[in-house]
């Protein structure tokens, strides 16, 4: 029960950490090569607005934490089943994008379409139909559309 309560309030601290990371990154930006006289030189630095925005993110993170703690805002909760499902789908999509990065569109696109269709339509058990749909999707996205638009797609 206590763990669940902590989990519901975690969103705010995550935002604060994100703001701190942004602040550290902003502080590392080098100074402008051309100086402006006086105090104005501080305000016109390239790092000035990123620092200001990072501080605002931290402040808003603190406000969010306090609102979550008081119960004025609630972090949406999802059933474990939905989490597992979305994690699998995200993983498949990420693997697809990485595979395209290294091996081109042709084979990863067919495999991705097939795996996704099989996973999402598991109960239908009509794998031949899904195989055909995956082949059509691949043909349309990798050959037909790029050909129509004169797009040089990296096939391999």
């Amino acid at each position, binding site marked *: 029960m206590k763990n669940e309560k902590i989990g519901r309030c975690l969103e705010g601290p995550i935002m604060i950490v994100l703001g701190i990371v942004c602040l550290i990154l902003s502080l590392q930006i080098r100074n402008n090569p051309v100086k402006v006289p006086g105090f104005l030189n501080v305000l016109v630095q*390239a790092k000035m607005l990123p620092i200001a925005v990072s501080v605002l993110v931290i402040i808003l993170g603190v406000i969010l934490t306090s609102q979550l703690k008081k119960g004025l805002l609630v972090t949406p909760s999802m059933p474990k089943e939905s989490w597992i499902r979305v994690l699998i789908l995200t993983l498949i999509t990420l693997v697809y994008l990485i595979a*395209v990065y290294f091996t081109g569109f042709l084979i990863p696109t067919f495999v991705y379409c097939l795996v996704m269709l099989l996973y999402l339509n598991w109960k239908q058990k009509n794998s031949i139909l899904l195989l055909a749909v995956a082949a059509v999707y691949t043909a349309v996205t990798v050959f037909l559309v790029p050909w129509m638009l004169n797009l040089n797609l990296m096939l391999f």
Partner: protein
Amino acid sequence: MEALLTIWSYLPDAISSYLGEPMVWVMLILGTALGYFVGVMPGLGPTMGMALSLGIIYRLPVEQGMALLIGIFVAAVGSGGITASLINIPGTAAAAATCLDGYAMVKQGRGREACGYSVFASVIGTLMATVFIFLIQPFVTTIALKFGDWETFLFCMFGLTVCGSLSGDRPVKGWLAAFIGFFISMCGAESVQSVVRYNFGRSELLSGFNSTVAMLGLFGIGEVLYTLMNKQSTKVEGKAGLPIIKLGVFAQNIANIIKSSLAGIWIGFIPGIGESAACWFSYDIARRSSKSKETFGKGNPEGMIAAEVANNASSVGALIPALSLGIPGSATVAIFISAMYLMGYRPGPTLVMENPGILSGICVLFVVAALGLLVIAFLASSVTLRLLSIPESVLMPLIAVFCAVGAYGTTNTPFSLVQLAFFGILGLLMKIYNYPIAPLVLGMLVGNTADTCLRRALTQYAGNISGMLLRPFGLAVLAALILVTILSIRSDRKSKAASKATSKVGD
């Protein structure tokens, strides 16, 4: 001023150059059909449809690209109400208010009537807003030309503040999204002194994140994953048939239509609010001023007309700040601006001076697309129920692949796939945790402009900062900015008090 007013005289030229070319018609019809499809399909929508088309547009001649884009834009926003009425799920967020009376009508066996009100009100809203823009844009541009760097910076901040504060009952999340978008936009070499900001050693990031790829990730991959997260399947009820348009009802609602159009245009004009707020705002106005308040939500056409006119007028009205200042009024217009950049235009105060025929061209295409929507809605009425029956589990993988192809096609570098993955996961997490995506997009699009303008203004007024602060237009925007901030803090407090009271009652 006179020079600006002459842009109206380009209307005949625009009609002949845009509509005289057969391929423009083909693209417009294709765009309208695609827009209808993405509009009626729950889980898709105008932003995703337009984002997907970005990968195609830059390959087409300007007129054809513009026709495709505007076709999708108008039809997708306009057809969302059909789904809202038929299955009680808004095809687009902008059609949420239409569910109330539209679905009630369907349950009463008046489904064809509901579709008729939805489509025809959408067409009227689009046409009225287009005429309004055509007439007012030269004047807005005249004012925008008087905007200096300081005013532009303040207007960007105004948009971000309003955008965040109108994120329902969670303005903090809206502002967080806006500032994170703002932060993301600052990646790469800035334009004042070419200082490189967090590119993580990647030369591909020297020009920052590609906004087109970001949109494809946020609205494409993110939406696909979010939609597939739940195993829900859409239940389709009702019978197919041609929409029924009762012109008499529209004639009785002229005052309602005018009020809703103006309210929609006004909401569209304020950056970042978007059409989804316009429909509720206008629905509320219509309910308050109606003689039959008690029938609202029970199948009253007044509510449907108000909501649909307003959301379409708002989507067109959002073009006013986009064309005159380069600041998008909504997420869909943010994509429209990206597309304009891809086509070689530079939205902002000088747009109509550099391209005097552009306003007339856009307006002509909007009018034809709106009429096209009416035709498509009639022709497709028999297949709409079948379209709604396509399982998302079959359709979504195709959309994910289109996003990948579109992202690669935009930059022709495999690194765009890394960006796509980043923004896809970001979009998914934002949807899961109820962070609005529109403020993030607005932050991304105006962040760099705001930074450049502020630093240029400060340098320009180095010895006379009070001179910068006391510029009349700047003062007006600053006053509006302060007012909005105060009002949103007050409304946040009120909503907190209300939620406390509700929880006490619940206890």
